[in-house]
C-alpha cells in the first residue's frame, strides 16, 4: 500500500481514547425484552447511547431484561422499550401488565423512557386489531387502532417546541399498521415528510414528561444524536444534577451528515 489515504495503523484508531471522566458518572440503561422486541435495528439505539456515554467518559451500564427477569426500575436512569412483530408484542403485553405500576411510578418521577413502534403503542390505553384488543399500559393518554395499508416510508420531523433540542430535524423510517391518536398530548414532532401517527394530523410520536414515544426506526438515535443527548441530559440531570454541556463536546459531523442526507433527499426546504 502506498496510498497515504489508506495508510492508517489500524481501522480502529480515530474513535477510541476519549474517556476524561472515567468512573465518576454511571447511567443504568434498562433494555426491556431485547429477546422479543428487537425489530428493525432497535439495538442500535442502545449502542448509540452506550458509545455517546463512553466517548464522554460516562459509564453506561446496559441491563438487558428478558421476559423472566424483573426490571429494577428503581435504579433505572433510561428505559428502552422496543418494537416487535404483532405476535411478539402480544407476549410482551401480558408480561408488562405485571410491572405496570412500577413503570408508572418511574415515569411520574421523571424517569426517561424511549418507546419505539410497538413499545410506543403499548404506552397507551389499548391497540385495537382485527384479532381483538391488546391492553396497553395507560402510561400516556393515547390509543391505537389497526389501519390499512401499513404506513411505510422514510420520515422527516421537526420539533421546535423543546428548548433543549438543537434546531435540527429528526429523521427515520416508519413501518406500522397502527394508527395512533394522542389527544391533547404534545407530539414528538411535526411531519415534514412521511405519515406520522395516523397519516392524518401531521403529528408523529408523543412527548409526556420525560417519555418519548415514536414510530421512528432507523434506528432513531444514531442519525439523531440530539435526541440521544436529550435522553442522556435528562438522565444525568435527574441523577447527578449536572448538564451534558459540562462534558466535552463530541464531533458529530458524520451524524449530522447522515441526518442532512435524509432531510435534503426527502424534504428539501426549497421545494414548494
Amino acid at each position, binding site marked *: 500500500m*502506498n496510498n497515504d*489515504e*489508506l495508510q*492508517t495503523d489500524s*481501522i480502529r484508531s480515530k*474513535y477510541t481514547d476519549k474517556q476524561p471522566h472515567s468512573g465518576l458518572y454511571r447511567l443504568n440503561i434498562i433494555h426491556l425484552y431485547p429477546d422479543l422486541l428487537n*425489530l428493525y435495528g432497535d439495538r*442500535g439505539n442502545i*449502542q448509540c447511547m452506550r458509545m455517546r456515554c463512553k466517548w464522554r467518559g460516562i459509564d453506561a451500564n446496559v441491563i438487558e431484561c428478558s421476559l423472566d427477569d424483573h426490571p429494577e426500575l428503581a435504579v433505572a436512569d433510561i428505559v428502552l422499550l422496543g418494537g416487535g412483530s404483532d405476535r411478539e408484542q402480544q407476549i410482551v403485553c401480558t408480561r408488562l401488565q405485571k410491572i405496570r405500576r412500577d413503570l408508572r411510578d418511574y415515569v411520574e418521577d421523571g424517569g426517561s423512557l424511549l418507546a419505539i413502534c410497538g413499545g410506543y403503542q403499548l404506552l397507551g390505553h389499548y391497540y385495537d386489531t382485527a384479532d381483538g384488543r391488546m391492553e396497553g399500559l395507560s402510561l400516556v393518554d393515547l390509543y391505537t387502532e389497526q389501519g390499512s395499508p401499513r404506513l411505510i416510508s422514510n420520515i422527516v420531523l421537526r420539533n421546535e417546541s423543546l428548548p433543549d433540542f438543537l434546531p435540527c430535524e429528526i429523521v427515520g423510517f416508519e413501518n406500522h399498521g397502527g394508527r395512533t391518536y394522542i389527544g391533547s398530548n404534545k407530539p414528538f414532532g411535526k411531519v415534514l415528510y412521511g405519515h406520522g401517527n395516523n397519516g392524518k394530523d401531521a403529528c408523529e410520536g408523543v412527548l409526556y414528561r420525560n417519555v418519548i414515544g415514536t414510530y421512528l426506526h432507523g434506528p432513531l438515535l444514531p*442519525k439523531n444524536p440530539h435526541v440521544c443527548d436529550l435522553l442522556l441530559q435528562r438522565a444525568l440531570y435527574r441523577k447527578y444534577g449536572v448538564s451534558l454541556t459540562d462534558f466535552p463536546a463530541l464531533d458529530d459531523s458524520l451524524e449530522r451528515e447522515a441526518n442532512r442526507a435524509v432531510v435534503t433527499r426527502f424534504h428539501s426546504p426549497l421545494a414548494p
Partner: protein
Amino acid sequence: MRLRTLLAVAAAKAALTACHLSGRPGSSLPGRAALKIDPHIIAPLAADIRRGIIVTCGTNGKTTTNNLLCSMLEAQGYRVVSNRLGANMLEGVAAAFATSAKRPLGYLFAKGPLGYLVDAKRPLGYLDADFACLEIDEASAARVLQDLRPDYMILTGLFRDQLDRYGEIDLTMKALEKAILEAPEMTLIINGDDPLTAYLAKNSAHRVVSFGVSERVANEVDEIREARFCENCGAPLRYDFYHFSQLGVYRCPSCGFCRPEIDYDASGVRLSPQLSFDVKEPGTAPVKISAPMTGFYNVYNILAVFSVLRQMNLPTDKFNEVLRSFRPQFGRGEVFHVGANGGQRVLLNLAKNPAGFGQNISAMLQDRSPKDLIIVINDNAQDGRDVSWLWDVDFDRLADETIRSITVSGLRAPDMQLRLKYVEIESDRAPDVESAIDRLLAAGCENLYVLVNYTALYEAHRYLEGMQK
C-alpha cells in the same frame, strides 16, 4: 397453443431483443410484456416441461441453490429452463418461460397451419425442456404457484429481509404458507435446521424431506436471531447449539415441536481451505462432497441440491465434478482476477440482510491473508428502502487485523459509515463503487472484498467483468 399465448411469446421475444440491443440482460421486462397480453402465460408453457419443476424459496441462498441445481441437471444432459439471473418475481418467471419458448412462426412452420389447427392440445406452449428450475420471491410465490405446479419446493431458510417490503417475518411466513397451499401435491425439501421453515413444513399436509447439519461446526456468534420462541406455542426454544442466526439443533420444551428427523445430514464439515463434508442418507453409504467455495451457508445450498437430485432418483456421480467447475454467478461469491497477469483478486458478494452479511463476514475472516474491504449500501426499491437492518449486523467483527481498510459507498454511505463509527471502526468514502475499486487496486491491493446489496450488484459486477476482460 392459444393465440393469446402465441402473441405473448412473440412480445416477450421482441422485448428480449430490444433489451439485448440496449445492453440489458432482459430478465424481467420480456415477462412484463408477455403478462400484459396473457396474464396466465406460465400455465400452458409449464405444462410442456417433460420431467419436473423445482422451485426454490427462502430469504437467503435462492440464486446459488437454483443455479447449482441447473448446472447439475445440465451436466446430465437435460434441457433446463430457469431464471438464473435471479429475476424471481412473477415477471421474471414469465420471462424465463416465454423467452425459452419456440418462436411462434417457427412453431407454425413446423406444424403447418393445418397441423396447428388440428394440434390444439399439445404441445401447449411448445417449450422444449426437461426441467424447470426457478427461484421465486416469497411475496410472489402464491401468485406464481397459481399457474405453476411444481413437483418440489426447496425452502432454504427464513431470515429477516427487506422488512419494508415484506413487513415482519411473520408476513413472509404467511405468504409462503399461502403459496404452499396452492400446490398440495408437491414435496417440500426443507432446511431442517431452521425452526421457522420446519414449522411451515410441519403445519402443511405435504410430503416433507429435510436436510441439515446435526453436529456442531463453528463457534456461534451473538447476533440477531429470528425465532427464539416456538412458532407453535410461543415458549422459548431450547438449543443444543446454533450454527448461525436461528439455525441449529432446537426443540420446544413446552409443546414438543422439534427439529425434524434429518434425511440428508452433513457431517465432518470443514469450512477451509474449501468446503468439504459427508452426506449421510438413511440406508446408503455416506457420500463425500467437496466444493471450491467458502461460507457455512453454502453447505445448505449444496445439501438442498443433493437432496432434490436424490429424491428425483437422478444420478449424483458428477456431483463433485460439477461443484468443481461451478462458477458462482452474479456476485454470489464470484471471484475476479484483475490487474497485471490477473494478480489482484477481487471477491464480489451480495450482502442484503443481517444473516447474509454475518455469513459473509465469517467467510471473509476465514481468509487470514491481508485484505481491503468495500461495502456498498443502496436503498432503492429492490434493496428495501429501510436500511435499519445495518444495525442488526455484528460489524464489530470487522475490527480484525487482516482488514487493512474499509471503503464505503452507495446511496446510504453515510449510514454505513455511521454504523461503523459506533463500533469504533474508521472508514473512507468513495463516490461510487467503480472509483472505490480503482482506488484500492491502484494502491496495490491484492485481495479485495466487495460486499454490496442488491442494486449495487449489477454495477459492481459489470465493472469487474469489464476489468477482467
